[in-house]
């Protein structure tokens, strides 16, 4: 049961082969048994899950089940979930029971899905390895010495280990695609504005976007259909119809023009990763696609621009954590300044503080134009690179990450850690959608192929990924840990 896709489980539920309660119990048992080694969950919502499963089974008995009714999944601990601890991986919110549901959570609940719990993550989604969590690092199910990637590392590890068939993540600079690549699963970052950000604890508001992480593109299509759509509570959410993403999964790739950005195959790319990606592209050629070299000339400036814009927004977004209305408050503050400074010093981890300081510094008087305004100009140039490329080709392909999952503790230096996101970050600056699909291994560690499309081209991206998964079986590989019996 645990190694099936969401789509397969939906069929099993529909056929009465299994009930949602049985499925939920099985997976809760697996979490209990296996997650001690992975640390992929922060909270397991045992009782709520069983209640939701029973409700789903009751609905099905009445003949009122929808396509997702009774399907289990997990939520990154960044989604506010009514009545459930929502920590964002931070000590700051260790005591925070969210008083409302995020839009994504509402939609998933009303679709009848069953959330098993909240997954581990880099604190406030700041990180690429999941080592920045207050709740400890997550380990990669393929190799316990390796990181699962971040910041949605808990979601990626949980799916890869067969603890849940799917999980929700968020992606600000690669936080869905990179952990999906590291853990050998499929992860989609939709177009900015496609999914409501309401109730997602903000890291960098102009970059954050939620998306599904699952075993297959088909499962991602199923979930995206459930969470996408206009939300009146999010001014940046886009009023645009939601297509039936699964209906478009049968399209032939004959005539598809694939662009390979020159800059994505340069220095720093591990040769084995490059080889896996080039093999994958050959598969596409065999499916009738043509390959063209393109250029994204400002790629090199994506990380510098991101590390101005994201920390600037974060420094402001995280000001609300002040120990007054919710969250951590220091003991016996002597005065107001002491309350603020100690609560925040104690509540935030070092990477979060680093980014708050960078953002505060670059926004301050005398630095604002040189940093922030310049970064926004460069952001426009980066977006233009993509718009120009999509004049020539339908999709872009390349590695999701320059290396496979690295060892825990291997990247002590913040800058070298930041440089890991070289292939994912520009996508967020441009607001375009991207998907990572399993495309091979380097030793025991998976490699992800990243596919990028124009704004709102999710249907096409999902189909392109799906066709690959029809022709390959990388997405069907499971880590040994997932197959251990009790």
């Amino acid at each position: 049961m645990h190694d099936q896709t969401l789509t397969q489980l939906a069929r099993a539920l529909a056929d009465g082969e299994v009930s949602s309660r049985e499925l939920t119990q099985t997976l809760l048992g697996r979490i209990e048994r296996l997650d001690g080694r992975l640390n992929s969950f922060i909270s397991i919502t045992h009782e709520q899950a069983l209640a939701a499963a029973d409700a789903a089974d009751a609905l099905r008995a009445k003949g009122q089940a929808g396509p997702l009714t009774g399907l289990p999944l997990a939520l990154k601990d960044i989604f506010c979930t009514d009545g459930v601890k929502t920590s964002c991986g931070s000590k700051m919110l260790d005591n925070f029971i969210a008083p409302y549901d995020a839009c994504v959570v509402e939609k998933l609940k009303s679709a009848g899905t069953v959330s098993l719990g909240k997954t581990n993550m880099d604190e406030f989604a700041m990180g690429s390895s999941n080592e920045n969590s207050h709740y400890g690092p997550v380990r990669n199910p393929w190799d316990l010495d390796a990181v699962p990637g971040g910041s949605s590392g808990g979601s990626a590890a949980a799916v890869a280990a067969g603890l849940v068939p799917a999980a929700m993540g968020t992606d600000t600079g690669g936080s869905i695609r990179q952990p999906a690549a590291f853990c050998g699963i499929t992860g989609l970052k939709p177009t900015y504005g496609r999914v409501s950000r309401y109730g997602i604890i903000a890291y960098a508001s102009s970059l954050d976007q939620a998306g599904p992480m699952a075993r297959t593109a088909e499962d991602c299509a199923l979930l995206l259909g459930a969470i996408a759509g206009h939300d009146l509570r999010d001014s940046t959410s886009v009023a645009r119809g939601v297509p039936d993403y699964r209906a478009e999964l049968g399209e032939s790739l004959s005539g598809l023009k694939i662009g390979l950005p020159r800059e994505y195959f340069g220095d720093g790319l591990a040769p084995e990763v490059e080889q896996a990606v080039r093999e994958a592209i050959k598969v596409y050629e065999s499916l009738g696609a043509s390959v063209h070299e393109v250029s994204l000339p400002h790629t090199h400036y994506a990380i510098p621009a991101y590390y101005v814009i994201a920390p600037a927004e974060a420094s402001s977004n995280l000001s609300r954590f002040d120990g007054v209305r919710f969250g951590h408050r220091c003991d016996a503050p002597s005065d107001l300044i002491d309350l603020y400074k100690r609560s925040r010093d104690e509540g935030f981890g070092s990477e979060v503080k680093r980014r708050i300081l960078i953002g505060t510094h670059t926004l301050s008087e005398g630095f604002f134009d040189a940093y922030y305004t310049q970064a926004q100009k460069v952001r426009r140039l980066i977006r233009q690179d993509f718009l120009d490329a999509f004049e020539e080709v339908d999709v872009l392909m390349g590695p999701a990450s320059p290396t496979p999952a690295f060892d825990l503790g291997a990247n002590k230096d913040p800058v070298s850690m930041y440089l890991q996101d070289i292939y994912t970050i520009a996508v967020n600056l441009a607001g375009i959608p991207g998907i990572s699909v399993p495309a091979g291994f380097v030793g025991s560690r998976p490699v992800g192929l990243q596919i990028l499309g124009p704004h709102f081209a999710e249907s096409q991206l999902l189909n392109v990924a799906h066709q690959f998964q029809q022709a390959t079986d990388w997405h069907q590989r499971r880590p040994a840990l997932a197959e251990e019996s009790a």
Partner: protein
Amino acid sequence: MMQWETVIGLEVHVQLATKSKIFSGASTAFGAEPNSQACAVDLGLPGVLPVLNEQAVAMAVKFGLGINAEIPEVSVFDRKNYFYPDLPKGYQTSQMYHPIVGAGEVEISLDDGATKRIRVHHAHLEEDAGKSLHEDFHGMTGIDLNRAGTPLLEIVSEPDMRSAKEAAAYLKAIHAIVTYLGISDGNMAEGSMRCDVNVSVRPKGQEAFGTRAEIKNVNSFRFVERAIAFEVERQIELLEDGGTVVQETRLYDPEADETRSMRTKEEANDYRYFPCPDLLPVVLDRAYVDHLRSTLPELPAEKRARFESQLGLSAYDASVLASSRAMAEYFEVVKDTCGDAKHAANWVMGELSGALNRENLAIEQSPVAAEQLGGLVARVLDDTINGKAAKQVFQALWNGEGGGEANAADAIIEAKGLKQVTDSGAIEAMIDQVIADSPVQVAQYRDAEPDKRGKMIGYFVGQVMKASRGTANPQQVNALLKEKLDQA
């Protein structure tokens, strides 16, 4: 002795009269239980997002149109970052670089009836903060966030005012405009309008501005005048003693009638403004702005001009009557009911304003409705009653007599028998009686030189009016008396 010139600029914060907050659906009603109107967005809970209130935008644009300002096509919200307990998100959403209202101007009228134009630099939308309560929490401060997120329009003037009186007149003019437009209740006691005053002095004739002090959060017309008066004196004294003015924020204490430095250990703030990533640029198309323009009522300056040119009122009367929408509307009803602008103006500014002032009532609270006062003035104009009786009728109306209908004046005139006696037969009979009863006075009158008689006739008029219980038409009495006394 050096001659000093005062230079004043005002930042006026006007709470807009929307039903809900600028970025959330919580109520803006005043006086609710603490934090009962602070929703998730107002509290800045993790994950919440702002959505802009359409009426806040419409009201800001109306204000801009009302001061003939340019309305830029695009305006942008920025975050002003600082920590304060009444500021839940740690930033105030405001407009730093691209405000919704561009440069405009406001006409103020001074006591002598003269007018002056004060330039407005811009006006921008922002959210109000909550309130800190310092009492009764065993040394702690209590925070009420009901006010947080109430829409504010901040109107920033150029430093065009040269006296405390001009500053007060400007504030009154802004008050009149926003209440005319119905975009604010203008209630200063409840904080619907507050202002920060920038004051500096410079030697007369010098072009460069002096160093200014900012007096924060002044909340009445009177306090604005007094705070400036104190501050100007303080600065001049300081400079004349060879000192310098420090650029700083000061508070006006109405009890002590002085301004005090807000000495804080804090260094100068750095607000780190940047465009709010949760809100998109606000784009106003021409058709929308033109539509709003078409809904604007006549504003104080236009009204004042019309009262002068079309109704023939004096500059002073016109400016008093146009000073508030309620006053102007009241006056126009009186005028339309009685058909005579000057008489209407005299009654509104005289008898009515006097009575209102005595009882400390606003014109909206007048016990005499405008139609009733108009009905009364009409009876004076058509000679139904004389001036003396009219005052009696007014007093009766004030006391709620006459049944409360629009024609209450007529009912009172009827009930009290105040109709003027214009029947010359009846008046003649009364005159004959008075002449018969006053042989001594008649003889004196007739012995007097003709040019002295004018004064002496007053006695007889008084007697006849008394006999008529005030209802005789005084002009008629005068004429008939003259005729009869001069006969012999």
